[in-house]
C-alpha cells in the first residue's frame, strides 16, 4: 500500500491564498472524491498532488518521499481537456509508447480501436482522445491516479464502461483514485470517501 500526503502545504496565486498550512492524506486502497464549491481550488490541489505545481511551503510526499523529479510521475493526472494534453504532432501510438509499452487488454477495455493508433489527435473525437489520455496514464503504472472531471468528454454509456474498468483496475493494481466531479450522483457511485476542501 502507498500513501500520498500533503504536509502543511500552503499555496497562493499572488495575493490569493488557496491553501494555508493544509495537511491531507490518501492511501492507495481508497477512491476519494474531492468536494468543494467552485473556485475553491480542486484543480490546484490536483496539480499539487501530481507535481505540476510546487507548494510555497510544506511538501507533497509519496510514501514519505518527495515526488521524483525525473521520469514518469507515479502520481498521474488526467484532466478534462484531452486536446491540450496530447502532442498534436505525434501519432497516438507514439504518444502512448513514450509513456510505456502498449497493453492490448487496457486499450481494449477503454474501447480504443486499433485503427486509431496511427491517427493524429485532430483526427479523433474528444472522447476518443480522452481514452488515450487514460491509457497513457495507466501505461506509466502509477500508484495514484487523479481524475479531474475526466468524463465530461464521454457519453453516459462510455462513462459507465470506463469507470467500471478504472475501478477494477485500481482495485487490482492497488492504485489510489482521487477524483473531481461536479456530478453528485457520480460521486456517490464511485467514492469510498469524500473530502470537503472547505473543512481543511
Amino acid at each position: 500500500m502507498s500513501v500520498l500526503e500533503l504536509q502543511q502545504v500552503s499555496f497562493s496565486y499572488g495575493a490569493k491564498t488557496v491553501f494555508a498550512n493544509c495537511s491531507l492524506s490518501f492511501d492507495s486502497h481508497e477512491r476519494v472524491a474531492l468536494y468543494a464549491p467552485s473556485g475553491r481550488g480542486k484543480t490546484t490541489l490536483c496539480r499539487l498532488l501530481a507535481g505540476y505545481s510546487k507548494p510555497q511551503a510544506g511538501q507533497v510526499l509519496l510514501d514519505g518521499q518527495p515526488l521524483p523529479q525525473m521520469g514518469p510521475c507515479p502520481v498521474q493526472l488526467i484532466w478534462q481537456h484531452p486536446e491540450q494534453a496530447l502532442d498534436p504532432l505525434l501519432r497516438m501510438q507514439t504518444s502512448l509508447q513514450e509513456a510505456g509499452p502498449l497493453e492490448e487488454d487496457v486499450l481494449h477495455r477503454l474501447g480504443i480501436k486499433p485503427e486509431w493508433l496511427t491517427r493524429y489527435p485532430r483526427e479523433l473525437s474528444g472522447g476518443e482522445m480522452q481514452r488515450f489520455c487514460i491509457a497513457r496514464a495507466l501505461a506509466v503504472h502509477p500508484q495514484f491516479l487523479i481524475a479531474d472531471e475526466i468524463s465530461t468528454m464521454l457519453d453516459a454509456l462510455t462513462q459507465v464502461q470506463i469507470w467500471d474498468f478504472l475501478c477494477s483496475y485500481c482495485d487490482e493494481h492497488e492504485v489510489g483514485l482521487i477524483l473531481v466531479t461536479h456530478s453528485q450522483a457520480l460521486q456517490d457511485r464511485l467514492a469510498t470517501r469524500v473530502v470537503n476542501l472547505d473543512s481543511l
Partner: protein
Amino acid sequence: MDTQQHLSSVHTHEEAHHGHTHASVSHHAGGHHLLQVENLCVGFQMYETLPQQSSPAKGIACKEKQTKRFGFFSRTTTRQTMQWVIDHLSLSVHTGEILAVVGASGSGKTLLADAIMGLYDTNTCVEGVIYYDGVKQDASSLTALRGSEIAFVPQSVKSLDPLMKIGKQIGGDPARRAELFERYSLSTDVEGLYPFELSGGMARRVLLCTALMGNPRLIIADEPTPGLDLELAVQAMKDFRTFADEGKGVLLITHDIELALRVADRVAVFKDGTVVEETAVANFAAPHLLNHPFSRALWHALPEHDFSFEGEL
C-alpha cells in the same frame, strides 16, 4: 448559392418534412427553420495498406467506396477508401429553440458542427444540403456567415488563435466584453494574455464569451461546459435560453444530458452518424417514453439512474 426562399414555414408538427419530423411537444414558433440540415453525409479519404483483408471499421457507418490507385502509386499496395462517418443526417433548429444533440462519443457530433460552420479538412467529403434562414448554403457562404450570423463554441480549447491576445481575438464592443467577462468570472487582465497562458477552463470561458459577443442569430455550441464548474455551466445554459427566447436558435451538443435537459426544447439522439431519435425533453423523464433502444440505454447509463449498460458498445 441558391437564393430562392426555401419553402420552410408551414407544416404541422409531426408531419415529415425536409427528411425529418418533430416530436409533438417541440417548440415550433411559426414553424420557421433557422437551420436545416438535410441528408448530410461526411466522409474521409483514408489510405489503407493491402494486402491485409481490410475490414471497414466497426461501429462506423460505412458505405465504402473504393478506388484502386494506378499510375504513380501503381506499385504500392495502398488503396484509397471513403469512410462515411455521418450518414444521411437531417435535423433542424427553429427560431426560439434550443435543440440538444446528445449521443455516443465518436458518433459525428463535432463533424456536424464543423460542416455547419463550413470548416472541413482537405481529406473530408461533405454531401447534403444545409439551409440557413431558408437559404441554401455552400461552403463559402457558410464561411461568410460564420462569426456574424452563426457563432461557434468549438469543443477544443485549442481553437483559439495562439498568436493573438485574447482581447483582440474576442474583439467587439469593450463594454459588452467587460460585462461578459464579469459574468463568466474572467478578470480583465485576461484580455492581455495569449491563449497558452490560459487554463483549459479559462479558455472555455473565453470561447463562450466570443460566441455571445457579437450579434449572431444562431449559436452552434459543441461541448461548451467541460472545464466550467457547475454554477458557470448553469449560467451558460441560462444564457443560451435567454438567447433563444429572443427568437434566435441554439444547437447544443453535449454529453451532459442532465444539464441540457434543463434548458433545451428538443433532443436529438445521435448514434453512428445519424439521428436515431428526435424527442421532446419531457420524454427523458422515463425510459419507456423513449423510442430507440440506444436512447433508453443512455438513460439507464446516467449515474442518476442505474449507471449500467447492457451489451456491447
